[in-house]
């Protein structure tokens, strides 16, 4: 929020007592001083009832569950928003990382409201933005093929995994997110039939209790599958891969928000549960190394991928944020030489999100998604290796149009993290790292988690997925193609000064 920072949580805890106390005080005033006080008695009585109802009766609004009538003040400001903001705060297209307009669209989708926009775009719509090119002859509805993408088919794996929607939930760990958020995402993904990445939160206990397919992420600390030294334990990986709902493994080489940097899990955060799920001792800080101990150079990296593929028996991919194309070219050459390819490569844009990372890394490290994606696609095509793997793209791709743009530039499917946080009701308060998330997503504080009702938010996640997938199909029709596989640079208008322009021209 752009308003001054107030600790809503503490304030509302005070309000919970102060409002009924005022009702009592007014009653006494009315009884013994002047009847006029009873105007206050009635008002505070009503406010008390309202507060209780917000906190315990309704389940739809996380802010109201957590902050009661004080949360209502926030809603009121929001509905007066367009006018107020215009003059005092920031405009509809100013907030970052996601503008109010972008967020509002996710919220609408999540609530299942199919609202058209009136009169015109709120964007500048200048010639310096990438746009989609429609066809004069849209594909008739019904002729657009349903989406299908299979991972692991090049290797002829019996465990090859097929997705039927172009979107997957990108890595968000239990740890960065609290338990209810993880459960709501997993349940929503299950309802919509898409897989969810576990993030590097260790053994996916909570996700496994919900009915959805999982991509297990192995971070550099190998939480969940590590031995005492923090190296990969084949035995634990095998145990994990034998869970029927774990469908794929993702080896995280780097992440857009903090490429080339490991994380530190402070000992205060290591609860008994986290210690068990991640396989780390309590009472000691745990350092995630910036790279996998097993991957010291190109050959050992490729061999590590082979090892994970063989031990798990599942489609296995890698996730990375692009730093240098030369390095990647060398890595792909090594893969070709050893005939080992990851079943997918997830490209994470430098603009990617995170629970917490140092500012220079968030702001200044790693290639932005589009040039990275275009570059990787190009290198693979030039080396004749493109068909050996699948490309996934992540980086602020929220909404069907952004998905389509990613797929025009080489992605086979789309990964999204923050889009799903928004669908859970994230208000972009940017407190994910402080354990004080006001809507109970990025927090382990039980009193804040009270706001997030899993059954309710799971439906929003599902609605969001289905709404966007529906939009995506209609975009394909307007682009004049029959399936997402046909998408290419020719479906894009790319401004000449853009760094990806060369790719589109060629």
């Amino acid at each position: 929020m752009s308003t001054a920072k107030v600790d809503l949580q503490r304030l509302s805890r005070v309000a919970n007592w102060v409002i009924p106390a005022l009702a009592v005080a007014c009653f006494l005033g009315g009884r013994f001083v002047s009847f006029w006080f009873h105007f206050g008695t009635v008002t505070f009585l009503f406010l008390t009832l309202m507060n209780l109802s917000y906190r315990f009766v309704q389940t739809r609004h996380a802010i109201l569950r957590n902050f009661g009538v004080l949360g209502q003040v926030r809603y009121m400001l929001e509905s007066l928003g367009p006018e107020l903001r215009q003059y005092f705060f920031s405009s509809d297209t100013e907030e970052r990382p996601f503008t109010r307009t972008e967020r509002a669209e996710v919220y609408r989708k999540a609530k299942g409201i199919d609202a058209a926009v009136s009169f015109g775009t709120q964007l500048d719509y200048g010639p310096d933005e990438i746009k989609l090119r429609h066809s004069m002859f849209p594909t008739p509805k019904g002729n657009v093929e349903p989406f299908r993408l299979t991972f692991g088919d090049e290797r002829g794996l019996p465990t090859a995994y097929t997705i039927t929607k172009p979107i997957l939930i990108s890595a968000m760990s239990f740890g960065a997110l609290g338990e209810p958020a993880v459960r709501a995402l997993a349940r929503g993904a299950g309802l919509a039939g898409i897989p969810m990445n576990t993030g590097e939160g260790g053994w996916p206990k909570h996700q496994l209790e919900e009915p959805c397919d999982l991509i297990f992420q192995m971070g550099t600390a190998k939480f969940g599958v590590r031995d005492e030294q923090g190296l990969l334990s084949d035995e634990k990986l095998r145990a994990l891969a034998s869970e029927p709902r774990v469908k794929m493994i993702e080896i995280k080489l780097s992440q857009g928000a903090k490429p080339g940097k490991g994380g530190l899990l402070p000992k205060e955060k290591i609860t008994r549960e986290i210690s068990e799920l991640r396989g780390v001792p309590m009472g000691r800080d745990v350092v995630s190394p910036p790279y996998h101990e097993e991957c010291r150079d190109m050959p050992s990296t490729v061999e590590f991928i082979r090892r994970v593929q063989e031990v798990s028996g599942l489609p296995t991919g890698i996730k990375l944020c692009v730093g240098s194309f030369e390095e990647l070219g060398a890595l792909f050459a090594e893969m070709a030489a050893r005939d080992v390819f990851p079943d997918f490569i997830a490209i994470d844009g430098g603009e990617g999100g995170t629970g917490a990372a140092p500012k220079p890394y968030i702001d200044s490290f790693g290639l932005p998604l589009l040039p990275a994606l275009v570059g990787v696609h190009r290198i693979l095509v030039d080396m004749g290796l493109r068909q050996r793997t699948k490309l996934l793209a992540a980086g602020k791709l929220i909404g069907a149009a952004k998905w389509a743009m990613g797929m025009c530039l080489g992605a086979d499917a789309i990964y999204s993290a923050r889009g799903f946080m928004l669908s859970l009701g994230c208000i972009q308060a940017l407190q994910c790292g402080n354990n004080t998330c006001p809507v109970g997503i990025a927090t382990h504080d039980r009193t804040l988690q009270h706001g997030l009702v899993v059954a309710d938010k799971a439906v929003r996640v599902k609605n969001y997925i289905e709404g966007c997938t529906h939009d995506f199909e209609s975009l394909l029709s307007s682009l004049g193609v029959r399936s997402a596989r046909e998408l290419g640079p020719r479906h894009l208008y790319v401004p000449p000064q853009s760094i990806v322009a060369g790719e589109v021209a060629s």
Partner: protein
Amino acid sequence: MTSVQTPKSDASRRSPLVTTALWICQLGAAGILFFAGQGKLAGDAHAISMFSDLGMEPAGRIAIGALECGAAILLLIRQSAVYGALLGLGVMCGAIIGHLTVLGLGGLPFALLVAALCVGVLYIRRRDAPFLRNLIDR
């Protein structure tokens, strides 16, 4: 625009029985409130003595009378009926407190009746106003 959606009112989905009940509540509450309110504004002897007992004569009598008339008018207009009911309920809560603590139980049944009618309106129209919907949405 990112403006809030105005969902369709539930009016179309209400059964005739419920609609009848709704209008009985609205008309009943409005009638009694208007009758009581205009009496206070006009300065009935009964009202004056009551508000003298409360120590609010004449300002309180006029204020409450105006609020009662206002609530009655709001209750008669479809779009504002919930707010009228809320206002009516508030004034009646005050009246109930007054009867219980100062005035004696004589006028209590009327106040309770109007309060109940207002609650009826609020209940039947619970989906009409955002603030009510937010209270109970599940």
